[in-house]
């Protein structure tokens, strides 16, 4: 097929992903040749408050899913309070579909380390932690190497580059719990407890790690900081839309010719992304997709032209999330896809609150029944009732997220459910698959 049109190609904004093309950019010497640590020198010459203002002016919003304004979050940290401050990077990437942070840490780990140092200086933190997903071993290997190199060069440790600012940075590996991507569960985990969410308020800004003021930011958020420090807020805002500024790494997977990471101006559409990715696979027609991971309500072929920024996706009834677009075709079954996502939420529920722990358990059972051909019409009502009892009542966003694929697949694809229940579709699960799935 013909390649993408020029106007579509111009949606690409290689900023955070650009250095990935240099195979040795993970080495500090190569990183320094590619503008590396220039932002740190510039930042250390500025007043910390001016850096917070710069990030506010840039309109940078969190890249971990919620899209909270980063500068505002930094500004929440009380100053002159006599307490230690902490920066914690959430590198516990695990939302189904999401795969943008691991490649960043693997191929350009110093950009994250540099961002950590600048952010810590801005919020006056002398200790920072990168909580990285346990399974991400190669990314952690490169990151630990980068931290060691940065210490050796005087970018970390005491009196960084003669600025008088001290910073210690520890890379802390998790141990296989998706819930630790929830910021307060992450903090509990980092303190050596089970990763279970805390009640908010108080928010981490005042009572975070060790009950001290803490900023928790996603990898992509912090890795954006050096570019904003160098290029300025206006340059950053030349990408994206008014309320969703900057570039964003869209992770495309599924039934497309060329799955992968595409960094584009926020507000790009799925139609454009699919064009960049070489189109749908031959014989596949788009049927449903997630705009930002499995916790964001499914969208369909009707939504190909929705701008994929925070407001645009919300307007279409979903959530931008982590811009993990999982693309499914007419050969994929939305009921089965939802079932597998539910297995995930059931497995990953931390068990702290009843709605999420019990709700997901029962919903998995109902999906198994429907997919094995024994479902009833009442099952559909029970599923929605269960969602009603999870959504807004679960302790954290994990439970809420679990309802997204259920309610949205039922909204758009109720006929598929009915086809299983009324026997028009062959059972998808055999007795064998029903036994010992967990």
């Amino acid at each position, binding site marked *: 097929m013909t390649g*993408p049109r020029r106007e579509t190609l111009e949606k690409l904004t*290689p900023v955070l992903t650009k250095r*990935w093309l240099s*195979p040795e950019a993970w*080495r500090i010497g190569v990183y320094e040749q590619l503008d590396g640590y220039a*932002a740190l020198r*510039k930042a250390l010459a500025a*007043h910390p*408050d*001016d850096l917070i203002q710069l990030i506010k002016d840039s309109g940078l919003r969190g890249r971990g899913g919620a899209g909270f304004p980063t500068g505002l979050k930094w500004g*929440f940290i009380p*100053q*002159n*309070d006599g307490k230690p401050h902490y920066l914690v990077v959430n590198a516990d990437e695990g939302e*189904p*579909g*999401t*795969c943008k*942070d691991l490649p960043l840490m693997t191929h350009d780990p110093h950009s994250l380390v540099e961002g950590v140092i600048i952010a810590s200086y801005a919020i006056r933190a002398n200790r920072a932690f990168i909580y990285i997903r*346990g*399974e991400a*071993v*190669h990314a952690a290997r490169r990151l*630990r190497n980068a931290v060691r190199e940065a210490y050796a060069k005087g970018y970390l440790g005491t009196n960084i580059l003669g600025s008088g600012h001290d910073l210690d940075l520890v890379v*802390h590996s998790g*141990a*296989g*719990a*998706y819930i630790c991507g929830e910021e307060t569960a992450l903090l509990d985990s980092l303190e*050596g407890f089970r*990763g279970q969410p805390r*009640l*908010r*308020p*108080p*928010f981490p800004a*005042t009572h975070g790690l060790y009950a001290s003021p803490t900023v928790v930011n996603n990898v992509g958020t912090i890795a954006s900081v050096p570019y904003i420090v160098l290029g300025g807020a206006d*340059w950053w805002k*030349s990408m994206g839309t008014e309320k969703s500024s900057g570039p964003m790494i869209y992770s495309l*997977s*599924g039934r497309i010719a060329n*799955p*992968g990471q595409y*960094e584009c101006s926020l507000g790009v559409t799925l139609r454009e992304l699919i064009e*960049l990715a070489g189109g749908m696979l031959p014989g596949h027609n788009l049927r449903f997709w997630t705009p930002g991971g*499995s916790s964001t*309500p499914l969208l369909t072929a009707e939504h190909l032209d929705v701008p994929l920024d925070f407001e645009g996706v*919300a307007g279409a009834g979903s*959530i931008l999330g982590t811009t993990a677009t*999982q693309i499914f075709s007419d050969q994929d079954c939305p009921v089965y896809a939802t079932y*597998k*996502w539910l297995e995930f939420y059931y497995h990953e529920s931390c068990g702290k609150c009843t709605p999420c722990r019990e709700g997901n358990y029962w919903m998995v059972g109902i999906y198994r029944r429907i997919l094995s051909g024994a479902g009833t019409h009442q099952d559909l009502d029970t599923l929605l009732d269960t969602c*009603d009892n999870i*959504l*807004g009542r679960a*302790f*954290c966003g994990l439970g809420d997220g679990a309802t997204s694929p*259920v*309610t949205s697949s039922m909204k758009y694809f109720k006929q598929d459910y009915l086809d299983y229940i009324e026997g028009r579709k062959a059972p998808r699960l055999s007795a064998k698959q029903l036994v*010992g799935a967990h």
Partner: protein
Amino acid sequence: MGFSEATREKALEIIARYPADRSRSALLPLLHLVQSEEGHVSPAGVQFCAELLGITKAQVGAVATFYTMYKRRPTGDWLVSVCTNTMCNVLGGQEIYDRLSEHLGVGHDETTADGSITFEHAECLAACDYGPVMTVNYEFFDQVDPDTAVHVVDQLRAGQRPQPTRGARLCTLKEMSLQLAGYAEPREEAVGDGPAGAPTLRGARLAQDHGISVSGFDPDTPIKSSRGDGAPAAQAAGVAANKPASDLKPAGDMAKQQEQALKEAKK
């Protein structure tokens, strides 16, 4: 079993990474450390951590059993994990899991009779653009199918070390656990192993091939200074941070669209 002196020394190093009065933060890496010596977290390992941190065995046990990467029974040198979450699943992950399970004669979280391979299905491994994927000791084998997956485990059982698609050459699960405890990769140049895969680079390469870059980037753009009028903001910050969330939910997450989806599904 008692733990070696070397392990005990490492444990103290790990504890020293965290603030002095916050030694409990060392628990996750300590459990990885215990696993690097024993291959799993045994009652002795739990006791070892409890003694070092001055907490009870029950407290350590509660944590050890919460996280799936801590294994409660002896493991093989090779932990083979197959992603069966939605994307990998529809691309063939379930067939890979079923075939390997049959070939190895074990199910989820079980170890082969010869003790070499521990098998499991995994939830999303954050490599959907490479799906279906499996990992060996968490190193990726991309776009596998049932035949290539069987070939990989056969090589492992024959004492060979197949090269992962990305990431470093394989080390044993115990060796990997030491890295998870926060220790640097000890093998010369293994940090540099593994080229970036094509999917990772696709967008960046497409832009490069077509001469697309972001214009207007000037690294010397000055940082605006507002010295003198920036102070009051910081004092009000703590109050603003703890404003209750706008909806009724304590955590105040973004449930608005999700509620809309539920409402429409009920129609």
